[in-house]
């Protein structure tokens, strides 16, 4: 038999991924996830929005969130018309109109720019600005390229080391 690195049990052991792919690792950071309650009417609004495809369910039936895929972005909670989603602390999420969802405002004076926000965004709605929009010498700065895709999760703001991003709903800024 061909020698293979697949031998031997190391630490947490093996899982054959061809049968069942997802195994909980010993160091999973986000074991808690959002959950859908019985109130769910199976409209499917959250399924379309979930950036990681964690929600499954038949139309007009109770939907389910895969806790191993959920990244706690909270989009399902904000979109749900019947407030059937509980967050990781068990608190029922409040429904917010899509056009009132918070969006990132980037302060270019504080921005380094390092690109952490762009890589953090789960829906890839941030991008480096085209050179036309440059504000300082040759550095490209991030901007909200596709604001319709933004789900208002605020990951960009929380991961920005220099606090250059603030989340605010359009009604406040307009």
């Amino acid at each position, binding site marked *: 038999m*061909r*020698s*293979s*690195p*697949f031998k031997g049990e*190391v*630490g*947490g*052991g*093996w*899982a*054959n*991924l*061809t049968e069942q*792919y*997802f*195994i909980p*690792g*010993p*160091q*999973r*950071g*986000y074991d808690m996830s959002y959950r859908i309650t019985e109130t769910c009417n199976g409209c499917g609004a959250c399924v379309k929005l979930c*950036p*990681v*495809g964690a929600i499954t369910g038949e139309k007009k039936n109770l939907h389910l969130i895969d806790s191993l*895929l959920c*990244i*706690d972005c909270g989009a399902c909670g904000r979109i749900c018309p019947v407030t059937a989603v509980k967050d990781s602390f068990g608190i029922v999420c409040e429904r917010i109109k899509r056009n009132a969802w918070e969006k990132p405002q980037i302060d270019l004076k504080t921005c*380094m*720019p*390092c*690109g*952490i926000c762009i*890589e953090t965004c*789960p829906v*890839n709605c941030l991008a480096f600005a085209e*050179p036309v929009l*440059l504000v300082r010498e*040759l*550095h*490209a700065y991030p901007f909200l390229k596709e604001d319709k895709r933004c789900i208002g999760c605020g*990951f960009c703001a*929380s*991961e*920005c*080391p*220099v*606090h250059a991003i603030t989340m605010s709903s359009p009604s406040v800024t307009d």
Partner: protein
Amino acid sequence: MNGGYMGKILWVDLTVNEFREEAIPAEIYEKYLSGTGLAAWLLSERIPTGADPLGPENILAFVSGLLTGTGSLFTGRWMVAGKSPLTGGWGDANCGGTLSPAIKRCGFDGIFFTGVSEKPVYLLIDHGRPELKDAGHLWGKDTAETEEYLIAESGGHARVAVIGPAGENLSLISGICNDRGRIAARSGLGAVMGSKRLKAMVLNGKKRIPVYQRAEVQRLSRQCNKWVQLQPPFISGPMAAYVGTIMRILPTQMAMEGMVYKILLKKWGTVSMNQMSVEIGDAPVMNWKGSNRDWGIRKSLSVNPDAFKSREKVKYHCYSCPLGCGGVCVTKGPYGDVHKPEYESVLALGGLCMNGDLESIFTMNEMLNRAGMDTISAGGTIAFAMECYEQGILTREDLDGLDLTWGNAAAMITLVEKMIKREGVGDLLADGSLAAARKIGKGAESYAVHAGGQELPMHDGRNDPGFNVHYYVEAAPGRHTIGAQLYYEMFQLWKRVSGLPRPPLFYHKDRKYVADEEKAVMAAACSRFMNVANGAGLCMFGLFLGAARIPAFAWLNAATGWRRTPEEYMAIGAAIQTLKQSFNIKHGVEPRSFQVVDRVVGRPPQNRGANKGRTMDIEKMRSDYWRQCGWDPKTGHPDGEVTPSRPSH
């Protein structure tokens, strides 16, 4: 719960198209960190002795850093590791760009490939689900083209690592690209990927990266960023060369302050050193036989830093980098917007071959990036061929009619093209200078400038002997990104790690060439520190800020929740160094077998130029280094379980 790492890796067996996840115990991260440390541990255990580097038993590892994605700065490096087909021993390469966070966001600290695929494939990870897809239609396409195609196909936002035609053709000097031309070039790992018929790796991950104390990591980042943003207006590009001249003429040397280099990097990028390095004597000229007298300020004026800056359209930042030493330049050629060539590429394709034609450097750099070939090794190999041609070892017929005289840019471009396609003489040279010299015979080997088979980078050990030490003692030989006396001064490790010597502010240059114990302490400290950095995914240019300004150790503690002292982290670095050395010995690469090229250590010394009369006792320096690592000073073998000795001072 601790943080910083995802806690598992992905195994991909290309032979049977099978995926497995392996949970890595927390103790391993505590012992070897993530990144190359993790890879060194796994590869040492899992690659069987005598495995063919281009066969199914070799493992190709893509690993991310422990600090990547935690909110720390300068931590966007991803590392590739495997058994190197170029040197036969431990091989790793290191690259910036945006791939490193993408690996972790797929939920893994590393992706390990084994086996050989029957037909060309690429790996796609979408929503955490891995899949091997057919890459037959992509085989033969260049890296930029392939990357664009794969990004578009997978939704427009994927991060991609890819090999070009050089890797496919198993050129032993090929690398792995991402971000349209950032390349993990060294150790010939592109050929390993090519041998597995793995064209690319497409990552579409969205997982969050756990951090123990994100606020603390961010607070440290803000402090560090203040130093990065400190940028006074500076002198012009051509004038920078004269700073080098002054440094050359003065008999004393000032301990290098990394902040100065940071200012240069932020303004110009690595090309800031183009002319200055030649002037100081840091850059080898004319296949290492020339000096600043052969390629003086006037000849090299065409590649002065401002020549590159004037073409720069926008600065390029790797992930989590506030500095942005890269750039996107506009060229008139067929390629349009290209990555700004790096210092190493400019000198390898410029000064080393006496080529001062800027346009040709841009062209060759882009050709090599798109082919996925190492610019350092390609430049070194061309310079070797040029000297062979000059000496009459290679004739015009051997070179397919090319008049390969020093500085013939047109002939160089044709030769690069041949090397990429493995046509005619290109087939001979595509595996690097040592392999070519062995085939040519006729004493050509004395003109191949290499360490263990790998071409040397553009830092002359006759100017800074520290480079020479690392060229010949590292498990992956011939590398400039580990240590040097200059780097030691810039790292300023003595400010954080107790027991390390502090160099005097001013000292006589002759001091550098004395092979005393202190040099070995400095070299060992550099190796250990860079092992920690490669485990954490840290960029060397960030570390040049100095240990007091870039909180590498504090970041590690805040991100993982460990409470370690800098000395303990240095001990981890030493353990990784021993792992890599043992890897080489296991695979039959004797540490002593990295034969020193006489020219490189000044035997005989040069009779003119910046490094006139300089020579060094490299054998003693090497032996001192081994002793400092706690290894046998005669053979370089680690004796069993080595407990790293704390530097004694």
